[in-house]
């Protein structure tokens, strides 16, 4: 494995391994070449040989392989166009990779049927660079949308239709991000930092095991950015979630991550413990 710090054991089934139920069901051949990472227990994300290009041009991702154990905080750094966002989207199959294999929360999601993929996604909170909230709706309605991870139906489309228990749960999530007093406010009247906190509350509504954040503070001022990163750190401490985020802020990457992954032109250039990194070496990733 590229990263030597992940704690793994050899005694359970790999999400890519020949005996895994997904592979048995798909009837895929069990050649050694297709067997995945050797030690996968407790891995929330395992990726092998991930490739992606757009319109047949130069590869945005060029054979990325890595694994993230449960409870770890991982920062992905790299210059614009290095493939960070594409990598995160491929991990959720929001973008289909050209080749390579992905296991999310221990399940191989390559070619997974849409319904089962939705079940896996429901346990992963994804926070976007631009909060991606419905700006015309209230903060409360947006947070209630998070309940669609586990339920479906009109009750979860708008706060006015939601059952009492769901509304209370959403208020609790807003309370955790310190915005319960703005529950009725429309999102387009909130500041960038407040909107990003509502997006985090929406992710909390999912009760996620794993949170992925794509440059969550890129559109925020330094103080709001610091607040949002603190919030993620607090979630990791209190809920023990796994956290993978991309950032251009090297100080955030070093302060809030256990491990740093550097991408350059779609290739894995760096993988190591965050505290052990020299800032000058990290800057080279951006050159």
């Amino acid at each position: 494995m590229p990263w030597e710090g992940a704690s793994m054991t050899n005694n359970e089934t790999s999400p890519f391994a020949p005996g895994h139920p997904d592979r048995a069901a798909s009837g895929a051949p069990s050649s050694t070449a297709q067997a995945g990472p050797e030690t996968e227990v407790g891995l929330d994300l395992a990726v092998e040989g991930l490739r992606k290009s757009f319109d047949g041009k130069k590869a945005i991702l060029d054979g990325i392989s890595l694994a993230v154990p449960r409870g770890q905080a991982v920062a992905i750094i790299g210059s614009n166009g290095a493939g960070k966002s594409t990598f995160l989207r491929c991990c959720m199959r929001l973008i289909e990779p050209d080749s390579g294999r992905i296991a999310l929360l221990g399940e191989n999601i390559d070619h997974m049927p849409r319904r089962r993929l939705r079940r896996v996604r429901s346990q992963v909170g994804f926070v976007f660079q631009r909060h991606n909230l419905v700006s015309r709706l209230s903060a409360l309605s947006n947070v209630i949308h998070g309940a669609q991870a586990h339920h479906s139906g009109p009750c979860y489309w708008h706060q006015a239709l939601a059952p009492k228990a769901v509304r209370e749960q959403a208020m609790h999530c807003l309370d955790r991000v310190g915005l319960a007093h703005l529950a009725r406010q429309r999102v387009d009247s909130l500041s960038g930092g407040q909107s990003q906190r509502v997006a985090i509350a929406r992710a909390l509504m999912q009760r996620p095991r794993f949170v992925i954040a794509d440059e969550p503070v890129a559109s925020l001022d330094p103080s709001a950015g610091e607040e949002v990163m603190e919030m993620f750190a607090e979630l990791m401490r209190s809920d023990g979630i796994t956290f993978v985020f991309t950032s251009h802020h090297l100080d955030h990457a070093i302060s809030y991550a256990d491990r740093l992954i550097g991408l350059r032109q779609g290739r894995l250039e760096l993988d190591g413990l965050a505290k052990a990194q020299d800032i000058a070496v990290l800057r080279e990733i951006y050159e």
Partner: protein
Amino acid sequence: MTPVSAPPNRFERPSALTFLFYVLALAFIVWSFNNVGVSIPRLVDGLPNIGRILGQMFPPDPSRLGPISLALLETFQMAVVGTALGVVISLPLAILASRSLSPHPIIQHATRSLISLFRTVPDLVWALFFVIAVGLGPVAGTLAIMLDTIGFCGRFFAESMEETDKGPREALTALGASRTGTVFSAVVPQAMPSFINTSLFSLEKATRSSVILGLVGAGGIGIELKVAMDLFLYDLAAAIIIAIFLLVLVVEHVSSWLRTKII
């Protein structure tokens, strides 16, 4: 002071093909004028007739104000019910017709074609069809307005949903929401101002249409107007025309006011 470089020509010199297109377009317009027979002498000859009819129209005859008001109310009710039904049916059709939301390209093309059919066939033709199918009266007119509304709203609803920000939809997809949940939670709320705007325009359009539909027996005030004109009761016709004008004016003003209040 001498300019460093000469300014470009005011007009670009057209290519031979463009020039040919302009000439053909101009020739077609001239030919069309010739074919429909619009001429100044004919207009001048018609002026005394116009003056005579206008003279007989004034003062308008208010004697049938009661029946006119009832017919006007029926006309407006046809417009309201036809628009309401059309708007409700348009929403699911627009989702199926939208490029980014339709479950399959074949369904998308089929629904688009159906909406185009409703839009391209004039409402008067639909009214004739429904008069034969369900008989004379406001039901035929209402159904004609409904189809016309679907043709209008279906297209604009689909386009407004296609233009919404994809971000919220991606966010809900990422958290495992169903396709229906994603559409109704992320896409419809974003497109709502456009839906309201289009629906109000549709109501204005339906109010104008419902007046004409009466001419073919599909209910509303149109039949009153036709009878008055056929019997040369131009003063009564003037009263009906003024009533129609007031109805359309009120609907347009109220819908403009609603637009500013709701959106």
